[in-house]
């Protein structure tokens, strides 16, 4: 197993700047998920690590070895592709031992490794089948198996679950998590699905426009998103954003826009950031919009709103609310028995409130 370092990676396709100075350090045995919207350069980064794209500028190290000019086959990595890339003219077994055969490994060793991987992935029954005869999930497992038998330094996963249907995706997600516990390998996993990122990752790397936005554990990036992009990208349903201006009254800073006026306590926003007249964006997750709540400590004052639409999800319910002109989404326990159009009262949970500078998009709250 190995460490991976990206040092100031730049990638250009012609004049098109895809990656603009990416620095990431990945430790031994770490499960790192690179997440971001499509076109953010995450797959390009992975493919550069695999040696499938040239590095325009910067350095990539695997186990402290500079691999920029190294051929993919010499990097001791294994990759699981988005479309699985199973060789259609080989059986499952041949697919899995292809790399080992290329390395002229002894037959006994090849057999042992394939059997072991097949046991882990429950593929024993399918070894003699062709990829065409397998279902999507089975193909996925073969693709993973092909990576496992190699015993590589680093596993690369390129959106491996995006071609599966929702139910299968959940199952495979759990499988991959189990596999990680068992292999205890260095894994780099690229996805655009933030749920996958949150559930699988030891650390998440969030990218946008070819730049790393934040690196941290799932709980860190959820609790303390460092900028507006991360705040909006992580978490489902999406965070509510309220744009407005700060002012201060009686030593307490107050947020206000046309619809909402709200005091911001000092434990949310430190005094030194609470500049008079600063344009800010307030971020509140739907879970922290409390509807018809009796009130209590560390909650904001009550506001009056109108219920526009209810979406019942089963155990939870999405409420689309409107406070004068400001639209808000709240997620509450199921069976909020009110009809659309009725008036409701709501308040925010200060403990999980985020404040961002509007101009820079950076987090300024605690």
């Amino acid at each position, binding site marked *: 197993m190995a460490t991976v370092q990206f040092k100031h990676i730049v990638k250009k396709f012609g004049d098109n700047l895809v990656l603009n100075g990416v620095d990431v350090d990945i430790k031994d045995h770490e499960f790192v998920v690179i997440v971001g919207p499509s076109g953010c350069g995450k797959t390009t980064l992975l*493919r550069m690590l*695999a*040696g*499938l794209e040239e590095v325009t500028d910067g350095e990539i190290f695997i186990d402290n070895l500079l691999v920029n000019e190294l*051929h*993919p*086959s010499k990097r001791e*990595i*294994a*990759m699981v*592709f*988005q*479309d699985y*890339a199973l*060789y*259609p*003219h080989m059986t499952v077994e041949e697919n899995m031992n*292809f*790399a080992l055969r*290329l*390395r002229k490994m002894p037959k006994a060793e090849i057999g042992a490794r394939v059997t072991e991987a097949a046991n882990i992935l429950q593929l024993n029954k399918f070894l003699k089948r062709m990829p065409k005869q397998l279902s999507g999930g089975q193909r996925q497992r073969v693709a993973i198996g*092909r990576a496992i038998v*190699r015993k590589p330094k680093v596993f690369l996963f390129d959106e491996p679950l995006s071609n599966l249907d929702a139910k299968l995706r959940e199952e495979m997600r759990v499988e991959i998590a189990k596999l990680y516990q068992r292999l205890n390998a260095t894994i780099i996993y690229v996805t655009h699905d933030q749920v996958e990122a949150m559930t699988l990752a030891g650390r998440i790397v969030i990218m946008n426009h070819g730049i790393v936005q934040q690196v941290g554990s799932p709980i860190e990036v959820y609790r303390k998103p460092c900028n507006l992009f991360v705040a909006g990208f992580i978490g489902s349903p999406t965070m509510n954003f309220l744009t407005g201006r700060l002012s201060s009254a009686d030593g307490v800073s107050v947020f206000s826009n046309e619809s909402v006026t709200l005091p911001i306590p000092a434990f949310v926003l430190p005094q030194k950031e609470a500049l008079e007249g600063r344009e800010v964006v307030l971020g509140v997750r739907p879970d922290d919009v409390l509807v018809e709540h009796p009130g209590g400590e560390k909650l904001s004052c009550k506001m009056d709103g109108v219920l526009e639409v209810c979406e019942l999800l089963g155990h939870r319910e999405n409420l689309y609310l409107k406070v004068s002109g400001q639209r808000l989404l709240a997620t509450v326990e199921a069976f909020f028995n009110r009809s659309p159009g009725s008036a409701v009262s709501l308040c925010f949970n200060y403990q999980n409130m985020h404040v961002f500078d509007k101009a820079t998009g950076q987090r300024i709250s605690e």
Partner: protein
Amino acid sequence: MKKEMSAAAKKKRLQHLLIHAGLILVSAAFVYPLLRIFSVSLRPGDKLFSMDLSIIPAGATLISYSKLLKDTMFLHWLWNSLLITLATSFIGVSLASTAAYSFSRFRFPGKKAGMILLLSSQMIPAGMLILPLFLMIMKLKLMNTYLGMIIAYSVSSLPFSIWILKGYYDTIPRSLEEAALVDGTSQVGAFWRIILPLSTPALSIAFLFNFTTAWNEYLVARVVLFSAKQYTWTLGLFELQGQFITQWGMFAAGSMLVTIPVLCVFLYSSKWLISGLTLGSVKG
């Protein structure tokens, strides 16, 4: 309402009936010449020239076939054709398979120029290159030999083969080769172990195309080969038919022997051949 429906159905039936009638008529007209060859090949020697239109003639006999095989060098001609054709197809497809891969997978300076050269070579009238090729073969002292024929034929189908194969390679996902690279092959190894085995359908179509072109070729053979021993079957048949008065039965028998296998192969592969044709032309 119900009455109207049945009227519409009646109209439809009449329509189909007319279509069937038309198709049967045209099919008959299209197939009849082949049946005539068959019929003539079965005629007894004294009735080769008759106004008879029946398909199995009175006193049908295989005498023309046996005369063809015994008295002429027909089998030898077939053998000549087969050797020349196999060799040219093999060379042509081998060269095309790698060239098409370059065009399909890589970006390199001169790619566009190369593609334009391939396309524009299709504009050169076939008759135009026969003369210089003939003179070159003469200069190389390869007149009346297999080698001269193979040289003249080998690149004639190359542009089209490259075009078909490129179209097919384009449909193979790149990630397969990338997986192979990660698994430890070189770029050429990925081509050899992954792309070539996956391309067998396209390779056989290209082979078939090369094969039929060379197999049916007449004009180059006419000027390069001059002794009956070296003739390909096309020259041989022309010779038989040229002496119209005496050899019609043998000509028909020979035609049948050549046509039946070609027809079977063609009908079997026509679907792919056409998709190759349209793919190449539409994309161009």
